Every structure is written in C-alpha cells, then in structure tokens.
C-alpha cells in the first residue's frame, strides 16, 4: 500500500490511498479537500463538470472528519474524508439541485436522498453537484440547460451522458469519487468515453429515494471512480436495503471489495466469460472493436474460458427502451406542474397575465423543459395513448421479457458477459445533437442490461488506435451477480496494468493550460 505525502499531488491519488493516508493522519481531510477545490478552481471553467461547488460545506465536513480522528475515534467508513462529486439529480438538503433543467433552477431540496445520507454518514466529503443531460435524458451532456460538459481528454468532445459531469470530474482529477445514475447506460457510457470506471448495480441494489425520477423501472444509482477498487468501496457505502424505496431489494450490500481483492490476487482462472454475439460487429468503431479484441485476449491469458453467447432479442432492445423510457418519463415529469415547486410562468410574452392553472402549466413546461425532454414526453404520451398502447408500450414490455430470457440462457453458459461499453469513442460536441436516432444508438450495448435490471459496469480497456481516445469494456453480471462482475473487472484492470505499466485514467491530459 503506497502512502501519500503532503507534498504529493493529492488529486492524482486513488480514493483508497487517500482514505488510508487520512485515517493514519499522514494528510488531513481538509488538505485533500482543499487540493480538489483548487483543482476545480483551476480547470472547471474549461471542463464544466460542476453546476454547483459547495466549497465551505465540503471544508467543514472534512474538518469534522479530521477532528473525529484527532479525538482517536475510528473512521466512519473506509472512505472517510475522501471527496466526491454528486450528480445533480440526487438531492442534498439545502444545496441547489436542478437535474440539469431550467424548470428547477434555484430549487433547494428540503431533504436528503438516502444516498446522500449514506455518503455523509460515511464521512465522504461532497464537493458539489455535477452537470448532466436534463433529467438524465441524453448520451452527451449537451442537453443540460446550463451548457455542455467537455471531455478532459479533448475539450472539443462530449464526456458521454447523462452522467458526463460526474465522469469528467473524475477524468479531470477534480474528484476521486463520483455518483452517477444509470437508466439506459448513463453511468457506463460516460465512464467508457472518459476512461474511468462506473458501475450500475442490480436494479433495486441502491435506494432511489431522493433521486429525481426519470424512468422508475430502469433508474439505478451507482458508484464511479478511476479504479475498480475505489468503485467497489463506494458501492459498499451506498448499496443496501432502504425501507423508503419500495423497489429496494431487502438484502445487505454485497461484499464487492472482497470480490475485487480476489480478482486482483486470483485473476479469472476457471471463470467462463461470454461474448454476446449481438453486441459487436456492425456499428462499432474500428478502434473500439480492436480494443475489445485485445481485452478478450487479456482475459484469456488471465485464465478465463471465453464462450460466445447468442442473445437474439437484443436487437429489439433499443426500440423497446425508447418506448418504455418515454412512457415512464412522461408520467414522472407530470409533477413539474408549476404549482408546488420549481419555475412558474404567469405572463405571456406581451406581459399580460395568464389566468388559468392549465395554461400556466403548459406555458411553464413549454419554457422550462428543453428539446429532448419535450420530445420524450410527447413520445411517451403517444405510446401510452388509447389505440397505440398495445402496439407500442405493451409490445415493448414483452420485448423486455424476451431480453431477460436471453440473459437467463446466456448465464447458463457464462458467469459474466462482456461487450464494448459504447460503440464509439467520444464524438465531437454538436455532431449528433440534431439527430435523435443517431444519438440513441450510443446506448446500444448498455440498454439490454438496463431492461433486464442486471448489474453492469464499464472499465477502461485501452486507447483506440484510430482516435487516441479511451475505450470501455462492459462487464455484465447476472441479477445480484455483483461479485463475479467486480472480480472480472479487477482481474482485467490488474492484467492491464501489468501489461501496460499504467492505467488509462493516468494518461488523461493534465489540462495545465487551464491555469
């Protein structure tokens, strides 16, 4: 275990190392927090990962950790004192939360999400709220009402979405830990295109209480970091049953840190890893396919048995997803009615007063929501309307059954499944913004896992030879199969480090020009 001296660049350390150094009082949590706030100050004007930075609150939380350690108390958790970036769709009492939307500008939540409570109780220092596609709808963070986040690897490119802010904060060394939410791939695809790690737990594995709902049957909160171990440590902090979320699985958090240690020491010897035939080939960038082939070779060398599995209904996943998601979001977003909280538009452009609640509602929603949100609300309204319900929404729910059955059969042959996380590396800002279908294709590989509710994660698999940008490897476990998923991820990461001498996140540009 390496140690951290106060003169070292604290923002380049892993969360695990920082936590050890803080617990042994080699460095203070305040020093660590200040280093990250300074880094945010230096680079975030260019990256725009954060919508709100809670500097004073973060320093106060860090000071509380230091004082507790000074009194000789045990750390509140193995990550006590480590800073974190929170996606701005998870509420934190008294801290502005917008979900990337104008309709919630200036809103101060009157309560904490369960995830927020658990982070605070663990002594984790929340640096601020990160940018996202409005209400988590998007694959590029270009749909934020507050402007796009930029990919630290190349500031002209997207950081993925919807959790682009959280992923970019990690890749820009603004935070060692981050929280994301994944509905169709919003943790995994940003992790992939920023060269970081992100995990979507089994649906119901982390409480959604206090997480602004997009599509309730798909949304899942998950941990993000630059290493698999850090991700697993954060996973253990936030996971586990919450009586306030009726879809929360009544089981304790899985011991994923142990699974990571096992992957690091024992590799993947004796494990069967399935390659999904349908999640490769056409539509994948050459550099992505190449990196995936190398990842397969690495896993084979590490002792895995590779099998090809057939999931014939995956090709319908995208279509089913883009019916189920808009249907649920059109219903969830009905709460933004201008009556109880958020924006209220009461005047016409000519200054005259709008008299009725219905018209105020329509005017407010028309002005408060961005283009992608309106498009999906109308799509959902259509899919749920009488006469089309069976053909669209009903059929999509049946496709979901067929995809679950594909997974069940696949897991008879393999312990985990793998694929590229995203079909392409980070594309240019603006490149796909006017073409919804082209944008939706970014989630091709991540959507089947979302529909089935299984755990899935993205770990960096290398740098694409054609674009020089990071590529992600997706590892999918069976339902509640976090342990084999993390074991394979850790084994892959260890093998990659042994092979290349450095991990992908450490290759990210320094962004020194920013200050």
């Amino acid at each position, binding site marked *: 275990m390496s140690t951290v001296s106060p003169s070292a660049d604290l923002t380049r350390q892993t969360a695990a190392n920082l936590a050890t150094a803080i617990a042994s009082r080699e460095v203070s949590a305040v020093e660590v927090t200040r280093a990250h706030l300074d880094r945010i100050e230096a680079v975030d004007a260019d990256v725009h990962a954060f919508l709100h930075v809670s500097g004073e609150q973060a320093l106060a939380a860090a000071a509380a950790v230091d004082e507790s350690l000074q009194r000789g108390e045990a750390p509140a958790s193995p990550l006590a004192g480590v800073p974190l970036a929170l996606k701005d769709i998870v509420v934190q009492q008294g801290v502005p939360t917008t979900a990337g939307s104008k309709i919630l500008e200036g*809103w*101060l939540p*009157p*309560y904490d999400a369960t995830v927020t409570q658990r982070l605070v109780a663990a002594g984790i220092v929340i640096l601020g709220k990160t940018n996202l596609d409005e209400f988590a709808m998007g694959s590029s963070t270009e749909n934020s009402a507050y402007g796009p986040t930029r990919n630290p690897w190349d500031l002209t490119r997207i950081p993925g979405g919807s959790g682009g802010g959280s992923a970019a904060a990690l890749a820009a060394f603004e935070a060692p830990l981050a929280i994301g939410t994944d509905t169709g791939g919003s943790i995994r695809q940003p992790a992939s295109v920023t060269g970081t790690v992100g995990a979507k737990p089994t*649906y119901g594995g982390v409480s959604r209480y206090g997480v602004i709902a997009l599509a309730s*049957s*798909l949304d899942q909160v998950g941990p993000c970091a630059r290493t698999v171990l850090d991700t697993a440590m954060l996973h253990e902090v936030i996971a586990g049953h919450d*009586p306030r979320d*009726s*879809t929360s699985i009544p089981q304790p958090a899985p011991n994923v840190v142990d699974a990571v240690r096992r992957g690091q020491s024992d590799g993947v010897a004796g494990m069967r890893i399935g390659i999904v035939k349908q999640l490769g080939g056409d539509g994948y960038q050459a550099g992505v396919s190449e990196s995936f082939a190398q990842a397969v070779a690495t896993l084979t060398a590490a002792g895995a048995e590779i099998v090809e599995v057939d999931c014939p*209904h995956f090709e*319908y996943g995208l*279509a*089913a997803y*883009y*019916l189920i998601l808009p249907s649920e979001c059109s219903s969830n977003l*009905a709460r933004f*009615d201008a*009556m*109880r*909280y958020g*924006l*209220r538009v009461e005047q016409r452009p000519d200054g005259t007063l709008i*008299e*009725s*609640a*219905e*018209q105020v*509602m*329509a005017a407010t*929603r*028309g*002005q408060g929501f961005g*283009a992608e949100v*309106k*498009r999906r*609300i*109308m*799509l959902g*309204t*259509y899919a749920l*309307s009488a006469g*089309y319900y069976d*053909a*669209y929404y*009903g*059929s*999509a*729910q*049946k*496709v*979901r*059954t*067929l995809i*679950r059955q594909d997974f069940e059969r696949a897991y008879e042959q393999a312990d985990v499944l793998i694929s590229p996380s995203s079909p392409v590396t980070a594309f240019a800002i603006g490149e796909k913004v006017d073409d*919804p*279908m082209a944008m939706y294709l970014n989630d091709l590989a991540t959507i089947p896992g979302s529909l*089935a*509710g299984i755990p899935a994660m993205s770990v960096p698999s290398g740098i694409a030879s054609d674009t020089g940008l990071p590529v992600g490897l997706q590892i999918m476990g069976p*339902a509640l199969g976090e342990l084999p998923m993390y074991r394979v991820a850790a084994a892959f990461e260890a093998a990659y480090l042994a092979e290349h001498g450095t991990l992908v996140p450490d290759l990210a540009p320094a962004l020194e020009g920013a200050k």
Partner: protein
Amino acid sequence: MAAQQPALTRDDVAHLAHLARLQLTEPELDLYRRQLDVVLHSVARVSEIATADVEPTTHAVQLVNVYRPDVVVPGLEHAAALAAAPATDEGRFRVPQILGEEE
C-alpha cells in the same frame, strides 16, 4: 400485429402537446412532427416479436406491497413543504384559477 402507424400530422403533434401540457412554438411543432415520425417508425418494430404468448415484464424485480408499522412519524415540516412554492398564501400553495376553465 405490426404497428401500422400513419404519418403524424401537425395537428396530431399539437394534440399530443396539449395532452402533455406543453406549450410549443410553431417551429417546434414542425420539428417534432418530423422527429417523432422518425423515432416512432423506428421503434414500431417491437411488435414484430411481441406475440400473444409472451408475458410482459413491467419491472426488473418482483414488486410486492411494502408496509410499515402504522405509527405516526415526523414528516416534512409545513414550512419546508411550502418553501419552494412559486407562491403561497396563509400557509397554503397559491395557484392560478383551476375551476371553470374547461367545459
């Protein structure tokens, strides 16, 4: 049954926007008519394989009713619940006229 959805008209989009309580501009109506048409055409293929013998999955985990003991616990305080409201009056949400606006 393949979803033989007819091309969306501008009036259809206006009607959908009304149902969804979204006031749209004229250019938005045109834009969404085109885009929704493309998306709907592309997602309609779900009906190709959704035969009558396939059970729908509404949720990835089995949902059951969750109960808690029937005891009074503190909820959100009155002032906190009202704090973010666009307008309040005498401790209540103040809203525009609701009655008498529809037939």
